[in-house]
């Protein structure tokens, strides 16, 4: 790390999309796709932005380049504030910061030859000399591993890998300092992926490019990236050097993600802590820590002594009941009543029936908690869903839901935001050692 300003420095970047209704486009809500993220990219560095699909990482990439205007926040490029650029400055910025897209099949205009497409940025930036453009394009194509003659070919005549190389060529041809690659290889075969990423690394070395690699694939992050930012639902939950983050993840989400990375050894036991459900709707993100609805390590209420697994199931039920859960789709009123009407089999109380129906433990480790759950289940059985929901909500509260976790940095370059990192909530190892 040097003392000079980083190549790209993003602070508090926010991108909200309004949801509009009716003819007059009244704003009915906002999708908080990116909700205040910080990240930076140095020259000659590959930084990964990882997260599940739908977490806002592509939006973050596009907002960074002002392809979509960010709602708030600053983006500094080479020390200049990009968000304050006027048209002319922005255009010059476009030349120096390029974007590579995910889908090689649709990233080329089918009616233009590869050469024309690659030359387009040159034309856009005012290079009027046709022959010169041609020379540059051919040179660039060769440097990304294509033949100069490929300039005359059409996208449909190229394979996916070739197209992605051509896409790189298009991004490189204006000699940018920053490259943002949005899932550049996820549509390619494994073997081709490596080639393309190798090429990217090589070019980074050679040209001193700063690269922001947006991906959901942790395996490539580890192999090719210097630093990593983990994103969840519009926020960055952890960041740090790639090696460090994966060797010692601080955030439960990162842990869950890295656990899902396929291990080359097929005999290795597959971790069971797969993330449950989908990413919640960004239009109504969960309160407090946004991950709490899916977190395997969600902090139990202090008043009860709940065993980790039982608590997670209880919380999931509670969220379903109040319609907040991410797998809420099926949690309709009818389902709840169906659970009661349904033939309970060997369970003789409504509570027991419901417990088996909703994957609740037959008995919670804390008696007080158990009683409250019974009470709630009974009112649910009586059809008073609201009351049941309210009861559970007041009784079983967790800090993860109440408070947004502060960002903690315990090593230089490493940051994570999780309540578990606060001393008072530090987890006992058995709490998240799931079966």
């Amino acid at each position, binding site marked *: 790390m040097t003392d000079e300003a980083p190549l790209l420095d993003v602070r508090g970047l926010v991108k909200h999309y309004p949801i509009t209704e009716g003819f007059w486009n009244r704003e009915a809500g906002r999708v908080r796709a990116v909700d205040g993220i910080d990240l930076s990219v140095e020259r000659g560095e590959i930084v990964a932005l990882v997260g599940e699909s739908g977490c806002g990482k592509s939006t973050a990439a596009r907002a960074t380049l002002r392809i979509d205007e960010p709602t708030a926040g600053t983006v500094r490029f080479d020390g200049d504030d990009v968000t304050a650029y006027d048209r002319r400055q922005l255009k010059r910025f476009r030349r120096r910061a*390029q974007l590579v897209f995910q889908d090689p099949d649709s990233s080329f205009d089918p009616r233009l*030859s590869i050469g024309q497409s690659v030359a387009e*940025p040159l034309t856009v*930036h005012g290079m009027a000399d046709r022959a010169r453009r041609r020379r540059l394009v051919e040179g660039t194509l060769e440097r990304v591993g294509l033949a100069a003659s490929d300039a005359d*070919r059409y996208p449909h005549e*190229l394979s996916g*890998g070739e197209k992605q190389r051509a896409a790189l060529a298009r991004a490189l041809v204006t000699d940018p300092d920053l490259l943002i690659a949005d899932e550049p290889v996820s549509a390619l075969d494994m073997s081709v992926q490596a080639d393309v990423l190798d090429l990217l690394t090589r070019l980074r070395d050679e040209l001193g490019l700063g690269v922001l690699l947006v991906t959901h694939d942790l395996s490539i992050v580890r192999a090719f990236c210097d630093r990593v930012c983990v994103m969840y639902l519009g926020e960055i939950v952890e960041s740090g050097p790639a090696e460090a983050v994966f060797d010692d993840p601080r955030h439960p989400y990162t842990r869950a993600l890295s656990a899902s990375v396929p291990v080359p050894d097929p005999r290795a036991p597959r971790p069971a802590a797969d993330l449950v459900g989908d990413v919640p709707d960004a239009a109504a993100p969960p309160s407090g820590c946004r991950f709490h609805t899916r977190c395997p390590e969600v902090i139990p209420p202090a008043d009860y002594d709940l065993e980790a697994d039982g608590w997670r199931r209880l919380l999931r039920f509670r969220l379903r009941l109040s319609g907040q859960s991410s797998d809420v789709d099926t949690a309709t009123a009818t389902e709840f009543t169906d659970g009661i009407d349904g033939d309970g089999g060997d369970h003789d109380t409504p509570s027991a029936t419901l417990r088996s129906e909703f994957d609740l433990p037959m008995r919670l480790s804390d008696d007080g908690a158990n009683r409250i759950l019974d009470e709630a289940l009974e009112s649910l059985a009586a059809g008073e869903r609201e009351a049941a929901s309210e009861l559970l909500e007041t009784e079983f509260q967790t800090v993860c839901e109440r408070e947004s976790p502060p960002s903690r940095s315990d090593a230089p370059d490493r940051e994570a935001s999780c309540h578990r990192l606060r001393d008072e909530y530090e987890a006992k190892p058995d709490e998240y050692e799931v079966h």
Partner: protein
Amino acid sequence: MNGDDGNDSMRDQVSGTSTDQASDSTTDQASDSTMDRVRDNVDRNGPERFEDVDWDAIDAEGRRLTKTRLAAFVACGLYVLTLAYDVLVAGDDATFEISVGLPWSTTESAYVWDVTAVDWLFVASLLVVGFALVPVARNRRLRAYYWRRFRRHRPAVISAWYLLCIFLLGTVGTLFIEPPSLDVAAAYQPPVFLSVEASIPTECVGPVVDGRCRGTWEYPLGTTGEGKGLAALAVFGMRVSMQVGLIATLISVAIATLVGTTAAYAGGWIDEALMRYVDIQQTFPTFFLFLFLAYLYGGSLFVLIVIFGVTGWGGIARIVRSEAIQRRQEQYIAAARASGASTLSVVRRHVVPNVSNSIVTAATLNVPFLVLSEAALSFIGLGDVTLPSWGQTIATGRGDLGTAWWISTVPGLFLFATILAFNFLGDALRDALDPRQEV
């Protein structure tokens, strides 16, 4: 430079094989060797590498004209100048004449061309079409690709040749052919090789054999009830048909493209407003509107063309809009924008060319509709009766079908063939240009 030689030979080889199975033939299995080549190229001190480009110099240089653009500017400039001359200098003259020098003709070097408002529009249309075709014309491989696909439709190929003939005869031919003139004494002459009862023509120009008047080469296709030669009328009708069809369609296409892409790109209330307007325009029965406006403003060719052009774009605009919205999602649009291209240039370079297959098809099918509409209006008696259009000739000769059948039938056949040809052409273009129909 040795690299260039290698590239040339490779280009031949690639273009030889890269037709249908290109995507299969070039796979990534050769990645090792390509990586080596990368290293070579990177190490090699090539001619100019992208990192050597002095962008500040290019920025400082400002915008320069490309050759095509320069040509377009020159053409437009010339057009505007001549138009200005016509309006300002020769404006008082009812007939404005241009002398067209003919290099190959030594005796009589000046031809008179009476340039009407419609002619001006026509020239403008041809210019626009010409420049729209530049990208295709310049691109040999793309051209060949489309031609290969188009060629499979045999009748369409014949249609295209036929239409080309009609077009040339109608535009260039009419400059050298005398306009059909009135000669009531020579009315109702039958076409050559045919004969008709001698009582039908006013006076038989050809020989009368067995009480039947024979057609002559003087009027190869016969004459009308006014004694106008049908051959000349047919040729002049070509011009009118081409003018109505092409100009009006071009106006429609231009407006439709503008409105369609604007609606697709602007979205929101602009989209809503434009499309609702199209709704209204589409619901207003077109033919009815023509009737109306023709009544109001008279049925002159110019008015007719403008009415057709300005009211007939709704359907095409809808197609353009829906296609443009689809294209908007494509990543090459995002890529172009990310590389700094303005919305206008993205629309011009990527959106419009990529919806052009729909536009071209719709336009090709719009032409026959317009040509027929012109004929229909003539039939109802709303056209310009002095116009030598096929529709007018058919309409005025319809009462003679029982005796002098050729008057309506000759232009009728031309009309029929032309519309048929446009229909075949439109369908073939749809097949050829539609990327979904890869075979």
